[in-house]
Structures are given as C-alpha cells and as structure tokens.
C-alpha cells in the first residue's frame, strides 16, 4: 500500500522551503522558477490579485504598503506584545489590532489575520510540491523556531488548516536540521545545532544514535536574527545620510523598503567579498524638484563592527544552554550551522572558537530544515523508516496558584510524551470550587506567562481551607497536545480540558482574573513568600488560640505561669500586627517566635495528657 505522502515545510521568516522523502531519499522541491527557496512574502496587487513568493518580492518596492514580509514575527502574538510593538515601527505594511487582542494586517482595505497570510505561503509550498509530485498533498510537517510558544505553534497549525494542509506535527527548526544531518548516517554522537535565521536564534543540543534523535536541551532568542543585522546596516546608512543631507530616510516607506533590500543584499555579498558598494540612486526627493542619491562603500570589517554584539549574544546563549544542560563544551562532537546568517564568516568563526571545532559543512543552511521536516513526516507515516525523534516540550507548564504565582508541573526540555501530577489544597474555608488556569512559561509570576486555558472544578466538600485536596494532572502527548485534569481526591470528581487553541488574553486581563477569581484559587502545599508566611502564621494563630485556655489552666500555678501567658499573648499580638502590616520580614520573625511558643504549648498539653 502506498502511504500518503507527507511534505516537510520550513516556514521561514524571510524564505520558505519544501521537501519530501521519496524512496527513502529526502530532497528539496524546487519552485516553478527553479529556486529551492521561496520568499515568505504575500502582496495584494493593485488589481486586487494575491501575489505570493518571488512575484510578491519583485513588486515589493513599488507596493511596499501592501506587501507583507516577516509575518512569522507576528504569528500567534498578542497585540500588546513587544514583538508587535517593534514591528509597528519597522514594517511598511499596516498592522492593526484584531478583535481578540491579536494582530491583523491591512492590505488595500482588506483585513487579514496573520495565520491567513502564513496560509498563503503554505498554500504556495503545497502547490509547488503538488506540481512536482503530480498528485494531491494534504499532510505536512511544519517547522517553527524552538522558542515558539504554544500560541505561536497553534497559529502555525491554523495556517496549515486554512491552506488545506493537515499539519500532522510541528517540530523545531534546529531539531529538523539535526534529523537531516544524521539521516542515513550511522553515527553516535552529541551535536549542537546553531540556528541563526531571519528572525530568531535557536540553539539545540541533541544526542544521536541508532537512528534515534534525542533533544537534550534547546534555547534561543526570539528577537535575534538576520533582520537585526540588516537593521544595523540600515541604521548606519540612515545615520550617514542624515548627517550628510539632514533627511531621515526612515520616514519614507519606499525608501525604507529599498534600504532594506540593499542592506540584505550587501550583507549577503559581504560573506564572500571584503567590500561592497551600496548604490541607491534617487532615494528621496528634496521637495525642490531634485532627488538625492545614496552611494557608499561598506566593508566586511565595518559590518562585523556594527553587528559584533549580536554575534556575541548568540555565543552567550550557547554558553548558557550548555551550562543549564550540564554538558561540557568538549562533549559536543559536531556543530551544525543552520539559517542564512550562518554564512557570515564572523558567525562561523565565533562558533568555531566557542565550540573548539570546525562547524559541519555537510548541510545546506537554507534547505536542511525542510529536509528534516520531510524526514520526520516519513518517520511518522512510513513503516520502513527507522528514524525516531525524541522531542521535548519547549516551555514549562503549570497552573496559577494563590497570590498569582506560577507552579510548574512539567519542566521545559522534558521528553514527550510525559505526565505529571501534584496535589493542591483549597485556600478558603468552605471553598466549593477551584479554578485551574493552565499556563506556559518560565516566570514565577503567573501573569508573565502565557495562558493556555482554564476550567473550574466544582462540587468540593465544604471544609476548612487546606483540607480538601485536589490533584492536578498534566499530560503532553507525543504530538505536543496538552491535556489537564483536576480531580477531587475525596469524591473522585473530575474536570479536564485539552488545550487546543490559545485565547487572546493580555497580561492585564490575566491580572484582572487573578483579582476576580480569588475565591477560586488553589494553593500549593508550600506556597510563596508572604502569602505562604501569612497562611502559616494564621494556622498557628488559630491553634495557639485554641490551646490558650488549657495551657493557662496548667501553667498558671507555676511561678512563671502568668508571665509566660503574658509573653505568649504578646507574641500573638506581634504576629497579628505583622500580618496586617504585610511586612514579610517582621512576619517571619514573629512567626518564628509564635511557632516556638506554640510548640511549647503543645508540649505542655501533651505532657499533662500523657
């Protein structure tokens, strides 16, 4: 039986690429123009026609406002996010706010969601492969930067659906690169994948052996890529031009687009030559019927000087990743370079210096990711394939607990599938329901992480706080689908959700939810800072109050009995004051004394009882 073909798509920030495994051999499918990569650009022409790829790129200069590039920077982002804010300034096309705090793009009075724009590119890749294969293609593995969160991954899947593609798996770009690197080679080694693409930087460490690819660690920076290098060149050009003519070229959208093109071109050229000429005639009009030209020389040294901190930053991330994964540099046996930016000699040199070995030259930085995606597609659907990818979850997962803290249940870089559970308790007396807010991220504060979903578990027994126990279970399937279940351990009542899409909530909204849902909160057995301290103090206060009459009876007879009771009263008072003053330090001090007294009280009572 011929299994249905699965294509692999590298949906890049600047360029996209599609590949397929045929008869056990992965290969890139060239587009109609014979190019192996297609610009990730979408435009609406004057006649309303949609243009994708090379055609869109060619008309970009004259139609800058209606040409979308780098949509990947916006996909799955919230309107209020930093990435969107910075894009507003630099993108020549109009970015507007969507109804769900998401981002929309305005092209010729038509509003598009970002997944729609990405869908046009995916559709183009689908068409390219269908023309090549002569049959319909409906399934794909699509790659994303390792640091994409669930929202961005989901949006990418949505884009696939809009394009008529069933995205059977999303995998990380560096992981895909490693698959392509190790495919068909009988190797057993630890490798690092250094992926500096158009918009993001990723570093991944993998262990390869016997056809198994185990992702050990992955990290990156979503705001660091080739376009940052371009922008440095643009800034340098703009600055020089302003100094000479007193005109800010950035104010003119067409000039900006031309600058962008020329900067990218110069950057690429400087990977092979030492110096290049930048020539932009008639770049801007002065308003007195005359035009100015921009003409200058850019050397490789100058470019390296302009971008040295960017390269440095990637190396710092590499060092940190290795450290966190507790892997010694000299255990890395090969370094794979991915992404067009790794053609820059300075980048290669920095990598070689850091890892102490020459980066692997066997893989094509622009094609390797798509090839890897195709290999994973075949691994999943072709019974003959002997490849297995042991992928990891890119971000930690957990729930919000009392005080607005984030309690992690599954750490990032955990191999999937995986499950984890933890028991939480109620925060209030007679609390009959708990709200489970499922979050993803690395911050201790809930509102700084991404909200994946929420649900309420009701029907809890009325009891004192801390008495009712709720077990929360997380499961991540091999295809990265997160499901969460909350269970009342007493009654066995359950509630669960499968996290499928992300809601477009802002940090403010989550903050608001924290306030609104105080009554629904759950608490970790060991909570956080003040709330935790207060909680404990209150418990001790309750107990000590209940012991007072008994203890007073017992010790009042001794010489120091009255004295001791007075002291104990003072300690109780001190604790109460610290609670109302919300002062953690004095509360900790007071609680210590309180617990000491409480312990002695307990001792007194048990002594007389025994």
């Amino acid at each position: 039986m011929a299994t249905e073909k699965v294509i692999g798509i590298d949906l890049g920030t600047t360029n996209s690429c599609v590949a397929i495994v045929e008869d056990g051999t992965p290969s890139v499918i060239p587009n109609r123009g014979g190019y192996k990569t297609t610009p990730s650009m979408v435009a609406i022409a004057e006649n309303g026609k949609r243009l994708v790829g090379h055609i869109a790129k060619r008309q970009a200069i004259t139609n800058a406002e209606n040409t979308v590039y780098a949509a990947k920077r916006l996909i799955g982002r919230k309107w209020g996010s930093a990435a969107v804010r910075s894009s507003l300034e630099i993108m020549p096309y109009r970015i507007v706010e969507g109804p769900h705090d998401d981002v929309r793009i305005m092209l010729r009075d038509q509003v598009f969601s970002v997944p729609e724009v990405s869908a046009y590119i995916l559709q183009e890749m689908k068409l390219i492969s269908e023309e090549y294969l002569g049959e319909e293609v409906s399934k794909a593995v699509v790659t994303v930067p390792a640091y994409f969160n669930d929202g961005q991954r989901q949006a990418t899947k949505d884009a696939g659906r809009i394009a008529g593609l069933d995205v059977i798996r999303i995998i990380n770009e560096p992981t895909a690169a490693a698959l392509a690197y190790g495919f068909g080679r009988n190797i057993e080694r630890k490798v690092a994948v250094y992926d500096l693409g158009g918009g993001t930087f990723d570093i991944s460490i993998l262990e390869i052996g016997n056809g198994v690819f185990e992702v050990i660690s992955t990290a990156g920076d979503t705001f660091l890529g080739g376009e940052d290098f371009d922008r440095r060149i643009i800034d340098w050009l703009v600055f020089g031009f302003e100094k000479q003519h007193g005109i800010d070229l950035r104010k003119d959208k067409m000039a900006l687009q031309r600058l962008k093109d020329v900067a990218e071109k110069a950057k690429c050229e400087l990977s092979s030559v030492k110096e290049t000429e930048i020539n932009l005639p008639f770049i801007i009009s002065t308003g007195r019927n005359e035009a100015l030209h921009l003409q200058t020389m850019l050397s490789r040294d100058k470019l390296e000087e302009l971008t040295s901190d960017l390269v440095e930053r990637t190396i710092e991330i590499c060092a940190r990743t290795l450290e966190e994964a507790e892997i010694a540099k000299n255990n890395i046996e090969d370094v794979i370079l991915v992404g067009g930016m790794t053609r820059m000699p300075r980048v290669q040199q920095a990598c070689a210096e850091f890892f102490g070995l020459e980066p692997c030259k066997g893989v094509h930085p622009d094609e390797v990711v798509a090839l890897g995606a195709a290999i994973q597609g075949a691994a999943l659907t072709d019974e003959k394939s002997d490849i297995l990818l042991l992928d990891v979850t890119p971000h930690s997962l957990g729930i919000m607990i009392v005080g607005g803290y984030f309690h992690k249940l599954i750490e990032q870089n955990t191999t999937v599938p995986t499950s984890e559970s933890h028991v939480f308790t109620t925060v209030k007396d007679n609390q009959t329901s708990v709200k489970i807010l499922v979050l993803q991220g690395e911050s201790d504060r809930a509102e700084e992480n991404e909200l994946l979903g929420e649900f309420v578990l009701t029907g809890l027994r009325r009891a004192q706080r801390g008495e009712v126990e709720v077990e929360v279970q997380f499961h991540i399937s091999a295809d990265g689908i997160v499901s969460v279940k909350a269970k009342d351990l007493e009654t066995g009542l359950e509630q669960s959700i499968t996290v499928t899409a992300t809601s477009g909530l802002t940090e403010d909204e989550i903050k608001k939810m924290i306030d609104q849902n105080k009554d629904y909160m759950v608490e970790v057995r060991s909570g956080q800072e003040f709330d935790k301290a207060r909680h404990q103090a209150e418990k001790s206060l309750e107990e000590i109050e209940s012991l007072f009459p008994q203890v007073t009876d017992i010790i009042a007879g001794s010489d120091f009995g009255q004295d001791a009771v007075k002291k104990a009263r003072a300690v109780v008072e001190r604790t109460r004051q610290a609670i109302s003053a919300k002062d953690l330090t004095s509360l900790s001090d007071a609680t210590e004394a309180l617990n000491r007294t409480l312990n002695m009280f307990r001792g007194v009572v048990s002594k007389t009882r025994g």
Partner: protein
Amino acid sequence: MSSAVPPSIGGLGSTQLKLRASPGFDPLKAKVLPEEYFLYSRFDGNQTLRDVLLESGLPVDRAIAIVVKLRSMGALLLPTETADVTEKIATRTSHDTTERLLVRGPDATEKIHTRTAAGSSPPALDTSLPDPDPDELRALTEPSVLTDAQRRQILAIARLLDPDKTGRRDPWALLGVAQGSDAQTLKRAYFKLSKDIHPDRFYGRQLGSFAVRLSTVFEAVSRAYERLTNPEKSGAHAVGTPVAETAQSPGEYAAELYERACAFEVAGDHENAMKLFAAVVRIDPQIKYLRRSASCALAAGQPRTALEHAKKAQTKSPSDPSLARLLATAFRACGKLADAEEVLVMAMALKSENDALGSELRNDLAEVRRLLNG
C-alpha cells in the same frame, strides 16, 4: 589492639554499627569457610561491628576481610536495611538467574552471579507473562496492528511499573540494563527501547488499548532514564534506588562524623569540630547532634550557628527545658535578649519540679533581665 580497628570500613560504614546476620542467607549453600561461619554467627544485631571484630580473637585485618566478604555474599544486614534486600541476593545465590527483574544488590552481587551463572548479562525482560490478569488477556487478543511479541514486551514492561507485582520500581530493570551500567550502555538501551515503545513508531495506526499503554510505558522508561542520567534534576522524584546501593547510609555517615567531631571538641579544637558538626547536622539533624553542635558553636565563638542549631533542636523537642536553656543562651550570645527572656520565661513555666536545672534557668533569667534593664 583496639586501636587497630578503624572507625569505618569501606563498603560497610562505621564500625560503631550494629550489623546482624541476614535471615535469608544460607551459609551451607554458600559454602563458607569455618572462620567465616564463626564470624557470621557472631552478628546478633546487639554488638557493634567493632566489638565483634575485637572479640573474634582473629587478627583485625583478617577479621575485616572476612566481614567484607560476608557482606558481599549478602550475609550481613546494615541496621537500616530490611531483610528482603539480602534475601534477594541470597535467593539468587542459590537459585537461577531468571528472576533478574528483581532489585539488584551492591557490586558484590555480580560476584555471586559469576559463581552461579557464569557471567553477568543484563537482566532480560520476561515476556512470558505468567498468570495474566483479565486486562492483560484482553490486551493480548484485542484487534491491534501490534504483533504478539510487541504486545508481550509492552505488557511485561507495564508489569515492572506495578509495585504489587515486582516489589519496587527499579529504573535499571525498566531500561533492561545491569545496575550500575555506564552512561553509554544506558543511552543505547534507552534508544533501542524507545524504538520499540515510543508512540510515534505506531503513528496513526490502530492500537486499541495500547495507545494508552505505549504512552504510559514510554513515559516511565524515559523518566527512569532521566533519573539515572541526571539524578540531580529528577532527584525529587527518585524512587526505587536500592538501599544496598550506597555502602553507607547517610545516618551512619553522620554518626561517624559526629564521633570525629566530638574527638576534636574534647581535644579543644573547636574550629575543626564545628566544621564536622555542621556537616553532621546537615546530613542528620537529630536532637543529639544539634545540641552538641550548638554548645560547641558557643564555645567556638560562632553564636549564629549556635542559634540556628539550638532553634532546630528546640523545635524538635519543645518541652525539653534544657534545650530551651540552650536556645536562650544562644539568643543571648547573639544579642537577642528579648528572645532569650521570652524563651526562659516559657521554659520556667513548663518546668514543674524545682531542681538544679530550674535554678540554673532562674539564674539565667535574672541575668538576662538585668541586662535588659541595664
């Protein structure tokens, strides 16, 4: 000759430990030598190892060698161990090697294996599934693309996850490797096994109940691998580490350090004593250690450490007035007079009889109050 007994023996720990003979050990089957049997018979659990060695009348070195050998045969139990650890060792000494899924003993087990089974191949998974339960029977017959061998493998691993069937979860057995295998062996085993049981290997195919089983089994194997290769990160979840794996339990180690610390203290070397005491209470924060450490810290001029340890001790036994006094003294040394007074008052209130300690407390309190007012 008592000085010839070392404070501890490698692989066993402190000679102050009271070892006992393992009920599961059969000296006849193990064919011990007369001297060995004699020494074995001395371990009644009441005498310290040191005493047994001394009273044996054998040269200390010889006696130690025999004890080490006995231990390696699974004949002796540490105080913290339960009999089943060595019983398992002993069972395997006398029986076959098919029950390899059981927890493996210390290195010494290997030696026993070589004697009985000639070579120590890694434990093989028993896929015969004796006495299948209804759920397993259903799994073996339900419609699924999996072959019988594949089903048996998955069910056999699932059995390893069930404490009722195997006693305890052993991460080594889950991965199908010999205990103590090196990182490379572990990785290879994990990768090989992953290819058999990772859900992606059966993507989109009819699996029946095995869809869930695969996920559960793979998750457990992957966790076991993580635990064995990265114990720090997964330390919180650590289970199934056999007791016999460490030659000396933390408690024994603390006891040994404590003795050495006391020796320093008696010799007047408070500084070195404190270094050891600090380690002792970190390993095993029991009252006895905390109390001694706190007093030593006071003598060594380390009031903060004294306070920290006195607090811990007092928390553990709040109605002990002598600990309260120690705590008050530590508070005083740290200049926290109000706290000292409070503790002393409470201690006085707790104390019913008027004995020497009572008057000491009274004096202390008077002194503290004088300082407070002056």
